[in-house]
């Protein structure tokens, strides 16, 4: 099933997208939100459970203090206010993967609220207002067996794994994101990407999108240009890559535009994102009748973090990734474009590491975004997975600086490194890559070049010294590149008397 969609340009010509993002983050605490069960990913099904996270009759939750600490750190990093006193609430609904048939969550009293953050897209900075960041528990995981699609329809039976049930989650909810319509999808992607970096820097989550520890729900609606009336929104659930966030938002804009333009109505519903086909399909209809019957969780006492604790945590916050980038760009003297290339190329941390070992930022950038990025691209690996680290890059650059290697030879050393041929020294030895610094060897090569190119020598002698370049080239070729070109020029000039 494919829906009629508009081209994005046509959609944006008639409608302004209105967007809000909800990001679920699984915390990397050792134990679950309300019990002591381990949270390790990938354990055999239902081996990390107890009466509490299975919701057995009589069992009671107790709040994980470390999860509260992580929630506060996230709130602070997103410039939120931290509640002096807040409560958990029960969100009541039935689903087989939810042991208690209510989710212990936060409703009208979140631990963090009223924050903001910034993202950079194409050199422009956009401010994103944060509505809230609240604590909740994850549900179990259903697997539908026996059907062709792995979905519940057509399945013969379903299996539920409760290992994930009760893992602490933080849900970060933005206010309506107001950016130029053409930037909406890119800003959504940049926001999720920024959050990932931030959460990594805070060390509160593994943020493995492929394992579902970071999941994004995108709310999108359209309003006709010039109108102030909000349209009906859809919620595209569990989008789990940066690229998909951008694509899913774009798709919903084009789909809703087509629906509206044909006189139809956008249905308020949740939608599923399909990575393979790049479309969303209708999920559960989310009418106003949906009623979670929230009420304060009577099994838990309120959470009241002391101001001293909050300030202690604030003092431990690392520099925000966005702030750090601005600082680094300034220190390195990079243009916006250069900095963006480094960041988008996934080379930021590698360049930082290389510069810390004494390499100039320009040289570090040159190797990582040049030779090494090309190699990574060819082998389909991430830059950090090449088997080349900051230490190797620094070592090679040091040899270039001392004149032992030139750029061409250095590239060959990197090739050897990528191919796993050993250390730079071993590769230089094995491939015979050192520059020849012995004058007599060079002079012999110069003599051979002069003897072989009488016409060129004639040109030089008749007052055209620029023609000597051809002789240098011949010498370099003779030396198989392993000569310092400046040194060759110096010796050649002396020989020719120019």
């Amino acid at each position: 099933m494919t829906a009629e969609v508009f081209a994005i340009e046509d959609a944006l010509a008639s409608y302004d997208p209105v967007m809000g993002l909800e990001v679920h983050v699984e915390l990397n605490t050792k134990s679950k939100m309300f019990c002591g069960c381990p949270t390790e990913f990938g354990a055999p099904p239902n081996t990390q459970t107890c009466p509490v996270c299975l919701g057995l009759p009589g069992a009671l939750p107790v709040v994980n203090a470390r999860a509260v600490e992580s929630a506060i750190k996230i709130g602070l990093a997103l410039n939120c206010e931290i509640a002096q006193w807040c409560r958990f609430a029960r969100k009541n609904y039935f689903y087989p993967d939810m042991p208690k048939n209510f989710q212990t969550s936060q409703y009208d009293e979140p631990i963090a609220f009223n924050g903001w953050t910034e993202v950079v897209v194409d050199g422009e900075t956009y401010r994103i207002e944060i509505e809230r960041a609240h604590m909740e528990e994850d549900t179990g995981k259903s697997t539908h067996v026996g059907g062709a699609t792995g979905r519940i329809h057509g399945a013969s039976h379903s299996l539920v794994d409760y290992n994930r049930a009760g893992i602490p989650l933080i849900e970060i909810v933005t206010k309506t994101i107001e950016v130029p319509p053409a930037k909406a999808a890119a800003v959504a992607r940049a926001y999720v990407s920024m959050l990932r970096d931030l959460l990594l820097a805070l060390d509160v989550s593994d943020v493995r999108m492929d394992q579902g520890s970071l999941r994004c729900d995108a709310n999108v609606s359209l309003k006709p240009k010039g109108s102030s009336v909000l349209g009906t929104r859809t919620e595209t659930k569990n989008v789990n890559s940066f690229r998909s966030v951008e694509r899913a938002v774009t798709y919903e804009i084009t789909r809703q535009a087509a629906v509206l333009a044909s006189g139809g109505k956008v249905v308020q519903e949740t939608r599923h994102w399909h990575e393979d086909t790049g479309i969303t399909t209708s999920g559960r209809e989310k009418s106003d009748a949906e009623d979670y019957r929230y009420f304060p969780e009577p099994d838990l006492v309120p959470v009241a973090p002391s101001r001293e604790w909050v300030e202690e945590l604030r003092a431990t916050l690392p520099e925000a990734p966005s702030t750090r980038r601005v600082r680094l760009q300034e220190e390195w003297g990079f243009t916006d474009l250069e900095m963006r290339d480094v960041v988008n190329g996934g080379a930021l941390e590698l360049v930082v590491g290389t510069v810390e070992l004494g390499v100039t930022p320009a040289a570090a950038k040159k190797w990582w975004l040049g030779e090494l990025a090309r190699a990574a691209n060819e082998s389909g690996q991430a830059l950090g997975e090449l088997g080349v680290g900051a230490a190797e890059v620094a070592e090679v650059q040091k040899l270039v600086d001392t004149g032992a290697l030139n750029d061409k030879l250095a590239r060959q050393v990197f090739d050897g490194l990528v191919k796993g041929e050993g250390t730079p020294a071993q590769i230089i030895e094995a491939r015979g890559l050192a520059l020849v610094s012995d004058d007599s060897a060079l002079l012999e090569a110069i003599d051979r070049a002069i003897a072989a190119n009488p016409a060129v020598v004639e040109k030089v002698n008749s007052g055209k010294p620029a023609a000597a370049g051809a002789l240098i080239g011949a010498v370099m070729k003779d030396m198989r590149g392993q000569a310092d070109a400046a040194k060759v020029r110096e010796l050649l000039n002396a020989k020719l008397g120019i």
Partner: protein
Amino acid sequence: MSDLTRKTAVELSELMTAGEVSSVEITQAHLDRIGAVDGAVHAFLHVDSEGALAQAAAVDSRRAAGEELGPLAGVPLALKDVLTQDGVPTTAGSKMLEGWRPPYDATVVRRLKAAGVVILGKTNMDEFAMGSSTENSAYGTTHNPWDLNRIPGGSGGGSSAALAAYEAPLAIGTDTGGSIRQPGAFTGTVGVKPTYGGTSRYGLIALASSLDTPGPCARTTLDAALLHEVIAGHDPMDSTSIDQPVPAVVDAARRADVAGLRIGVVKELGGEGYQPGVEARFHEAVELLTKLGAEVVEVSCPHFEYALPAYYLILPSEASSNLAKFDAMRYGLRVGDNGENSAEKVMSLTREAGFGAEVKRRIMLGTHALSSGYYDAYYGQAQKVRTLIARDFTRAYEQVDVLVSPATPTTAFAIGDRIDDPIAMYKNDLCTIPSNLAGNAAASFPCGLADEDGLPVGFHVMAPVMRDDLLYQVGGALEAALAEQWGGVLMSKAPELEVTR
């Protein structure tokens, strides 16, 4: 040796310490008594003879080895079927959990076991503790040992009836709106609702989380206090558990002194709708306490009249959520799983078949009261009333040390009498509910028999949060004074049950 089942826990403990009798003998005597009378009383849903005798034997060998044991070591106890006991069937009186054996012990059970208390079995109760008569049990009604045609009270009718039928000297109940105190009153036994959070709810199958409180039941005040001391105290597994030392309840029960104590009679809990015989015994008890040196004044708690409606919004709201877990997915009953029905269908068929009428009524009430658009008018408003009631208590305790009232407006009613009239049934808990809403400590002590029907009347004492000791002080004094009149505890006046073999 006189009949071991007639003895108090304290007496049994003394006999064991003196080496005159073993825990196995005591346990066997009670198992025999259960075998003889429970066919008529139906206090028990499950008798764990093997487990009980094994626990008793373990205590005997520890004692023989010279180990220092707690005062209740080796004494048998009846456990309300709403508390989980590892490996022992636990149903909460519902078809929904028929045959379920929990994989863990409730904290209260863990503490009982650690103290060497011998658990005889699980006692009958209104389904999921909803009811005031034990007629709502999915496994049949419990009969009041004073008159087998009467209800024993609810929801903990099984526990109190087990005491009154001499099937156990000690029992555990849970009190959400009076489920320990009301059956205590109806069976002429002692029932104590500790301060909310004073005893752990971990392992208590929840009815209404903000109200549920496990507590001790016994035939004497001192026995109840000893049991209280065993089960009370902070539990890190229960977030609402109070992290403070347990009040000195045993000392208070032994001291049993009310001289100089200020006692407030709650004006609103009496008069119209109260059985004359109940009022007469209550006032005599108050007079008796005055003679013992207590200072008695009348106190007004104006918001108590709203306690019942507030309670019947808060309780069903929390219950509707707490009972959602009974969905046929992981344990208990499953109906309609024929490979054709969806999970949702199996869930609803199971809930239809597994829940009784009263449970369904309260789930519907609670679901409605919490639904959007009604939350503020119902649940929100009830919470405000709750605050006002707590304030009434606070003001009253500025004038007096404890508050008193009849425990119930009437004595035990006949089986079937009120089962079709929920409102009449709910009114039974008029006196007991305010203490649950405020989280205060409260207890019922036997204070005589009503003239009209010769059935027990309960004297209700309410004390501030974490002043559970005051309950025992008053209860102990009253019990001692009345024992002089009666020549023993009130229970000794109960008619002999016909023994069947």
